[in-house]
Each structure stands twice: as C-alpha cells, then as structure tokens.
C-alpha cells in the first residue's frame, strides 16, 4: 500500500513524443481510472509505472520514494494484463503462489494468503484447476488474485472489462470495486471505455495526447469538464461558437447567431468570443414554441433514432450545424413526438451550459 506520485513524466521514441509531462497524484488506498482514447499514452504510462519502460525524464515515486531506478521485478507492482497472462502450465494455486515464492514467503504463510485471496475473489474450490479449464471471468479473477496476494504498493489494471461480455462486465464492475475497497490497495485502472472508467472508480483522470487534461470526481468532471477536449471526449456534446454581447452585473447575454441568444447568470467579458458546450440530454425538445426566445434553439429534425430508454434526435440548427439531442421517452400525456422534417424547439437551462473562454 503506497501513495503514488508521478511528476513531469516524459517519454519519446525518436521524434515522436508519447508522454508530454504527465502529472498525477494518488493517495494511499484510493482508486483512479486513467481514461483516454487509443494512442493517448495511458498504456505507456502504465508500463512506466510497472517498469517496462524507462521514461526519458520525470519522476515516479511510491510513498515518496523514487522507483525509476528499480527494475521491474523489484518494484512490488501488481499488474493485471489485458489478456490475463496466466501461466498455462500451472494451476490456479501455483499461479497465485508464484509471486509469493519469489519473495521467499514460507509454505504455511503462502497457504494462508492464497486461501484468503481465493475467498476474496470467490474462487475457493478452483485451486487445482488449470487456466484453460476456467471461463474468461474466472481467469480474470485469478489474475487479480495473483496480483493482489503479493500485497503490491500499486495495483495496475489494463482494460479490465474489455474482454468480457455485457452481463459479465456488469458483474465484474461490482466485484472489482468491492475487492479494491476491501483490500485498500492503491489502484490505477487504464481504459479507453468511458462507461468502464465512470463505473469503476471514484476518481477519474482524462488523458489526451500525452498529457493529463483533467482530474476529478467523475460526476464533477462530466458537468464541469474544464476544457473543450475533455468535454468532447467525456460523453457526447454539442459545441457552439458565441460572442458575449452584454454583461450586466452577474448576468451575461450570448449571441450564437441571428435569433439565438442565451441569457446566463454568469459574469463574462463583454465582446469576447467563447465556446458554448451543451450535453444532448440537457436540451428539452418540443414541437411547440416556448414562451420566451432566450435559451431556445429552433431547428428541423433530420433524424430520430430509438435507443431503448431514450431517443436520439439529430436537429439541423439555423446556421446549418448538426445538433444531437437526447430525449427521455417518458409517459407524456400528449403524443408530442417530433417528426422528421418537422420543426422542433430546443430549450436549455442556462445554468447547465458549459462555457469555455477561448476554448
């Protein structure tokens, strides 16, 4: 169990910069999801922490002590590989005891720890089985057990839910959280899947293009992304360019284009150009024109896609932009569904809007 500090981590291959000064802190016992698209450098960061890659510059420390000089097998890092990498020629018990043996743990202590960890992952009766006799989910739990039993300073999980089917994924999400909480291991989960990241951890770091763009609690990050890049990556979004036309006290007026104006209770700089971000589910779509003309975007429905619990509407705005709207299919009395080709009015709560100044 250790706290993790990463400072100004850089790594380049030739002229290609993969990590451009990555900074990250994680307190002892906490769990962080490192989220980013493919190629953003998250796997590279993971491998730097594990020790497979030597960064060009920067610092990695466990509990304040730098580990960069330490080779992989002396770092006490638990790594659960994407394809689990269980030793096919050893059974479950032997796989799990591998790390303990390397550390010279005596037989009785080994037995005790293995029993404990097997009951933690709920595979008590599987000790004698070979990897090929296990299902995907079971293999993953063994891989997890193998990494945990050595009581690592940091536990690293590489795309843990990627290989599992839907149902198993939901199950494992709950399992992983439980196990992390029970063992109190400092954990980093690397993934490109937003849903995975949002559901697995209580702290999220969004990584884009070799840098950490935002860190915070998932909900907070979702609502206040901090930058356009993060907003566009984390969930769907609609971005509009706007000019601040008026500022009066704590209120501002924005103009997106002819006829579309927003009134916000936020003080902005008059005359500045900003970017306005609105999530699809923040719009309310209706076929009837609402009362005022502020905070409303009129448009024409181009596409309506049924998605189960909600419908996705594509609307062509006045200046031709494509706006994505998510509409809950509720029990509205009136059958008010927008029609393709027909007009629709999108209203939004001004306080839900995200503003990026010079985004």
């Amino acid at each position, binding site marked *: 169990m250790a706290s993790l500090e990463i400072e100004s981590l850089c790594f380049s291959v030739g002229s290609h910069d993969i990590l451009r000064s990555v900074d990250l802190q994680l307190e002892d016992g906490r769990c962080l999801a490192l989220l980013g698209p493919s190629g953003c450098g998250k796997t590279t960061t993971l491998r730097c922490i594990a020790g497979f890659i030597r960064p060009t510059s920067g610092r990695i420390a466990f509990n304040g002590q730098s580990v960069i000089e330490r080779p*992989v097998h002396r770092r006490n890092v638990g790594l659960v590989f994407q394809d689990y990498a269980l030793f096919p020629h050893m059974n479950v018990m032997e796989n799990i005891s591998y790390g303990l043996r390397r550390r010279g743990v005596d037989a009785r202590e080994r037995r005790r720890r293995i029993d404990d960890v097997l009951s933690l992952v709920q595979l008590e009766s599987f000790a004698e089985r070979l990897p090929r006799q296990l299902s995907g989910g079971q293999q993953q739990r063994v891989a997890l057990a193998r990494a945990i039993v050595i009581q690592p300073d940091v536990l690293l999980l590489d795309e843990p839910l990627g290989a599992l089917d839907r149902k198993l994924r939901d199950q494992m999400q709950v399992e992983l959280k439980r196990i992390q909480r029970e063992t109190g291991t400092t954990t980093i989960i690397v993934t490109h899947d937003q849903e995975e990241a949002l559901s697995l951890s209580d702290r999220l770091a969004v990584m884009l293009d070799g840098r950490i763009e935002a860190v915070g609690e998932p909900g907070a990050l979702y609502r206040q992304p901090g930058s356009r890049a993060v907003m566009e990556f984390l969930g769907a979004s609609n971005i509009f360019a706007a000019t601040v036309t008026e500022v009066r006290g704590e209120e501002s007026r924005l103009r997106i284009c002819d006829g579309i104006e927003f009134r916000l209770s936020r003080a902005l700089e008059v005359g500045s150009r900003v970017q306005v971000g609105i999530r699809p589910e923040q719009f309310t779509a209706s076929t009837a024109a609402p009362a005022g003309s502020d905070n409303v975007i009129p448009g024409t429905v181009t596409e309506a896609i049924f998605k189960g619990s909600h419908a996705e509407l594509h609307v062509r705005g006045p200046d031709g932009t494509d706006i994505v709207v998510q509409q809950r299919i509720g029990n509205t009395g009136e059958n008010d569904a927008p029609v393709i080709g027909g007009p629709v009015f999108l209203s939004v709560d001004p306080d839900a809007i995200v503003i990026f100044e010079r985004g």
Partner: protein
Amino acid sequence: MSEERGFRLVIGILGWGSIVFLVFPVALTVLVSFNGSYFIEVPPSSYSLDWYRNIANINKIGEATLTSLMIAALAASLVTVMALGTALAIVRHEFPAKAALTSFLLSPIAVPIVAIGIALIQFFIRLDIAFTWYSLLIGHMVLVAAYPVRTIVASLTLYNSNIEEAAASLGASRWITFWTVTLPQLKPGLISGFLFAFLISFDNYPISIFLVRGGLTTMPIEVFNYISQNFDPTPAAFSTVYILVISALIMFVEQRYRVISLSIGR
C-alpha cells in the same frame, strides 16, 4: 533494467557463439581451398587456385555429378507431384485411419537412412533390377517423398480456401479453380518441397552407396572416395563451389517465394 540487459548479453554471447560454431567449418573450408601447399594449413602459408583446377581430377566427377543432378531433379519432381495429391487428401478430406496413414507417409524421415538402403538393395536384388539407374532413382524417391508432403501440407493449412469459393461464384469450374487459384497459392509449398527433396537427394550418400555398383556412381560417393584417399585441399575447393551454388540457389528461391518460413512450425 541492467539485470535484464545482463541476461540478454549472456544469451547473446552464447547464441552468437553457437552461430560462429555453425559457420566456422564452412568458412574455414573456403579459406583452405586457396591453400598454396599440399597439406591443410591454417592460416595458409601461401595461396593458389590449383585445387580448383584439380577438381576435374576427382575420379569420374563429371559423370557422377551429372548422375546426381539428374536423379535429384527427377526424384524431386516426381515426388512433388505425387505429394501434391497426397497433401490435398490429408488436409481437405477425411478418410479412415487418417492419423496413422499420415504418420506412415511421413515416416521415411525418421527411419535410419541406412535401413532404407539395406531394405531396398535386398528387394532390388530379388527383383533383379539392382544396381540400375532406375533402382537408384526409386531409392532416392523413397528417401525424399515425405518432404514435399510436409511443406505442401504446411502451405495448405495456411491457406484460406475462401478464395476458391469466390472463384466458383465468379464462374470457374473446379478444374480451372485448381489451376488458376489453388496451385499458384501453393507455390511456396511446392517450391520448398521440391528444393528440400532435391538437396537431400543430391547430397545423399547412404542410400546411394548401397544401390550402386560398377559404372553407376554419384557425386557424394566420388567426393567421399577422394577424401579417404587423398589429403590435399581439393575437396575444399569443391566444397566452396558447392556452397556458393547452393547459397545462391536458396537465396534466389527465398527472394521469390519466401519458403523459409514454412520450415518453422510443427
């Protein structure tokens, strides 16, 4: 980091050392072929090309080499053609005792070569065709039959038969599909099988020594005889020429057909 580097260094030294071991005798032979003196000396005290000229003096070398060439070429061709059918049958069809039959067809590789020679000479004597050119050919064919089977089977298993279905849907009959689609895809397997068979037959001593007598002789036999009776470096010159030709041949074939990858694997 350095522990791993140390590991790789040690393995690297051992590995390259072994490669040197592998290459050393041949490299040295080439060097010795330019030896000025009659005896084998390393490093040579003088240089000369005499031994290359002397190759012609190896008893019956021209005739023997020609025989070896023809036998090898013919044996390899016949065997490759037969192997094609066999390989297709093994990979594409089910038939009773398939595993056993397949092992049987591949077994000549594992059987002691001397055994094949002894069995065949007795057989040929009984049939009264011993010591003929044909019996030699048959002997070599038995020897090399298994190799093209292996390579063509390897080629077939790597091969996606969907393209045959595509050809059929485009209007090709089974025969045309075979000629225009299947066969070209099998080129690596066919070529490498032929090459293996050819080289093994060309170089073979044990089978030939049992099956020849009198006028009939092969290149390896004559070279071997020369080595046992003379101590000059002529065989070195011969070896050098042989290696050069073989290397050129293999490199050419590998360039065109990428056959080496077929030798790795089961």
